[in-house]
C-alpha cells in the first residue's frame, strides 16, 4: 500500500466542493447581474425602433416607409453587430425592411430569435400611424451581448478563483504546521533507546495528540509488562537449569576422582567437558536474553574500574588455569548503566582473550577516560582477528573458521548487545606491535 499523504487526502476532499461552490457562485452572480446589461442593449434597440417609426407615412390607401440612406446608415451602424429591421402595418402586413426578421410569438416586446441561421435579439416597438399603431421590429446579432456576458462571467469568477487558490495553499502549508505536534512526537520516539519503555509525558503533548500518546503509552506499558514477565521467566529458567547442571558437574567430578577403568574415564571426561560447555552456554544464552531490549535492568552510576576490580580475582584464577599473564591498567571510568550487564560484557571479553591466548600469553584489561569518554578494553597477544572477520565475529554463533576450542560464538554477540544497550561503541583492532587483538568499548558522555 502506498504511503497515504494526509495533505493529498485533504486536498482531494476539498477540491470538488470548492469547484462546485465556484460554479454555483458564478451562476448566482451571473444571472441577476446580466439583466441590466441585457436591458441596456434592448433599450438601444428600442431607441432605434422609435427612430425608425418616425419615418412611417400614412397615405390614404397605404402605409409608406421612407428612410433616407444617410439615416439608415446612422441607425444601423454598429461596431460589433448587424442590425436588421422590419416595419409592419397595424394589421400585420409587411411594409418595409427585412422580411426574415422573426415576428413576436406572443405579446413580448423583447425576445430571442433566429435570423438567417444567426441568433438575434429582437425588440418590437409600437409606433402611432394614423389612428392605429404600426409595429417596428429591430433585430440585432448577439456578438456584443455574448462578449459582455463572457467578460462579466470572468470578472465575477476571478475573486472566487483567487480565494480557492488561497485555500489550497493554506491547506498545503497548514497541514504541515498543523501536524507539527505529531512530527515532534515522532522525533522524540526516534531519539529513544529501544530499551526505554518509560511512558511518554502526556502532559507535555499537545491536546490533539493526547489520544495517540495515551495509546502509545498503553502499548509501552504492555511491552514493559512483557519484559518483566520475561525477566521473571529468565530468573526461574536460570535457577532451574543451573542447579541440575551443578549436580551433574559434581557427580562427574566425583566419578572422575574414583579409580575407574581407562576406557570409562575417556567417556566420563567427555561428559565432564560437555557439562562445563553446557553450563557456559546456558549462562551465555541467559545473558544474551537479559541484554535484549526490554530486558534491561536499572541504569545507575557505575564505575568500570570498580566492575573490573570486583571481577579481577575470578579472572586471574581463570588466567592462571591457562597459564596466561592477566594484568590491569585501571583508571576511573564512570558510566551510566546496568552493573550486572557491564560485568557480563567485560567478563566475556576477558574470557575470550584468555581462551584464545597461547600458554604464557599476556592479556591486559584497561579502564579509563579518553577525550572525556569512559572506556574499557581488553588486549591480548593471541592470534588476533583478521580485518575481514571483525564485523562477523560480533554475530551470534559465528566462529572464525579454524578456531580451536569449543566456544559457542556467543561471547562477542553478548558484548555487542550490551554495548548497544548502553549506547557504547565497540571497536576491534590489532593489539600493540600489530599482534593479537584489542576490543574496546567506548561510552558516550553522561
Amino acid at each position, binding site marked *: 500500500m502506498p504511503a497515504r499523504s494526509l495533505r493529498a487526502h485533504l486536498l482531494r476532499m476539498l477540491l470538488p466542493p470548492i469547484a462546485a461552490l465556484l460554479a454555483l457562485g458564478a451562476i448566482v452572480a451571473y444571472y441577476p447581474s446580466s439583466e441590466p446589461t441585457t436591458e441596456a442593449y434592448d433599450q438601444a434597440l428600442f431607441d432605434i425602433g422609435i427612430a425608425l417609426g418616425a419615418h412611417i407615412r400614412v397615405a390614404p390607401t397605404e402605409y409608406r416607409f421612407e428612410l433616407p440612406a444617410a439615416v439608415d446608415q446612422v441607425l444601423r451602424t454598429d461596431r460589433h453587430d448587424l442590425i436588421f429591421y422590419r416595419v409592419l402595418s397595424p394589421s400585420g402586413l409587411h411594409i418595409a425592411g427585412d422580411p426574415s426578421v422573426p415576428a413576436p410569438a406572443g405579446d413580448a416586446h423583447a425576445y430571442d430569435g433566429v435570423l438567417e441561421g444567426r441568433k438575434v435579439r429582437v425588440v418590437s416597438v409600437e409606433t402611432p400611424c394614423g389612428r392605429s399603431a404600426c409595429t417596428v421590429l429591430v433585430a440585432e446579432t448577439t456578438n456584443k451581448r455574448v462578449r459582455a456576458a463572457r467578460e462579466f462571467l470572468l470578472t465575477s469568477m476571478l475573486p472566487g478563483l483567487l480565494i480557492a487558490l488561497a485555500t489550497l495553499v493554506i491547506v498545503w502549508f497548514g497541514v504541515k504546521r498543523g501536524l507539527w505536534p505529531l512530527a515532534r512526537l515522532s522525533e522524540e520516539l526516534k531519539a529513544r533507546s529501544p530499551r526505554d519503555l518509560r511512558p511518554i509525558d502526556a502532559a507535555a503533548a499537545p491536546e490533539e495528540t493526547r489520544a495517540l500518546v495515551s495509546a502509545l503509552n498503553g502499548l509501552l506499558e504492555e511491552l514493559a509488562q512483557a519484559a518483566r514477565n520475561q525477566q521473571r521467566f529468565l530468573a526461574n529458567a536460570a535457577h532451574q537449569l543451573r542447579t541440575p547442571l551443578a549436580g*551433574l*558437574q*559434581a557427580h562427574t*567430578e566425583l566419578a572422575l576422582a574414583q579409580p575407574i577403568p581407562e576406557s570409562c574415564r575417556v567417556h566420563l571426561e567427555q561428559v565432564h567437558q560437555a557439562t562445563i560447555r553446557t553450563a557456559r552456554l546456558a549462562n551465555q544464552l541467559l545473558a544474551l536474553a537479559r541484554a535484549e531490549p526490554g530486558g534491561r535492568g536499572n541504569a545507575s552510576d557505575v564505575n568500570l574500574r570498580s566492575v573490573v576490580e570486583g571481577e579481577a580475582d575470578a579472572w586471574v584464577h581463570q588466567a592462571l588455569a591457562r597459564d596466561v599473564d*592477566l*594484568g*590491569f591498567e*585501571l583508571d576511573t571510568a564512570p558510566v551510566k548503566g546496568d552493573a550486572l550487564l557491564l560485568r557480563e560484557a567485560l567478563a566475556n571479553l576477558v574470557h575470550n582473550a584468555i581462551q584464545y591466548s597461547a600458554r604464557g600469553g599476556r592479556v591486559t584489561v584497561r579502564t579509563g577516560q579518553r577525550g572525556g569518554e569512559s572506556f574499557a578494553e581488553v588486549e591480548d597477544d593471541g592470534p588476533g582477528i583478521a580485518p575481514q572477520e571483525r564485523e562477523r565475529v560480533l554475530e551470534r554463533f559465528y566462529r572464525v573458521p579454524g578456531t580451536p576450542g569449543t566456544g559457542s560464538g556467543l561471547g562477542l554477540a553478548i558484548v555487542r548487545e550490551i554495548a548497544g544497550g548502553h549506547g557504547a561503541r565497540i571497536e576491534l583492532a590489532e593489539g600493540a606491535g600489530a599482534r593479537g587483538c584489542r576490543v574496546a568499548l567506548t561510552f558516550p558522555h553522561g
Partner: protein
Amino acid sequence: MRLLIVEDDAPLASGLSRILEAEGHAVDVTERGEDAVLAASQEHFDLVILDIGLPRIDGFEVLRRLRAAEKPIPVLVLTARDALEDRVRGLDLGADDYMVKPFAMPELTARVRALLRRSQAHGGPRIVHGPLALDTVARRAFLRGEPLELAAREWAVLEVLLAKVEKIVSKEAIIQAVAGWGEDLSPNAIEVYVSRLRSKLEPAGIRIRTVRGFGYMLEEFKPAAH
C-alpha cells in the same frame, strides 16, 4: 571440620557432601531452611553451605536468622540467580563468600578451605600456611620450625596476604592495611617489601604471585611432589 549443607536439589546435595567428605569433613545435609536454623542453634558447625533457592523460607531468610542468633558461623552462599547475585555480593547479608551455580568442584573445595582457615585464624594467635607459622601474639614467625626474621612492615604485608590466601589483594588495600595514620606509603615501597618477603619465603615453596597493575596473591601452599 563439621559442615552443614542446605540444598533442596538432592543430586547436587549428595554430590557436594561426597566431595567434602572426601576432603575429610563431617557433612550433614538438610533440604529445608527451617531445619538448618534449628540444627545450627543446637549443634556446632564450622561452616554452612547455603542454597538461596529453598522452598518455604529462602536462603536469605535462613542467613538472616543465622546472623540474628549471633553465631559467627561462616556461610558460603550458593545461588543460581543472576538477579540475586548483586544482593549476595553486597555483603549486607553477611555471607562470607558466594558461588554461582554451576561451579567446578576444585573451586568449591578451595573456597571451603579458605573460609575454614580464615575462621580458625580469626582471633586465633597462630596462623599456619604450609611450612610457615605466625605467632600473632608474640609477633614471631617460624619457617620450617626455624625462627624467621621479619621487619615490622614485612610482617604487616605478610599478614594481609595470609588473610586472603588464593585471593588477589590490591596494592591500595595493602597500603591501607600497612600504613599508619598520616603515613604516606608509595606502591613502590610495597614492591620492596614483597620482594624481600619472596626472597625469604620462596626457598620454602611459598609463592607470592604478582598480578600486573593490580597487586599480589599468596598462592595456596602445595607441597612439592617428591
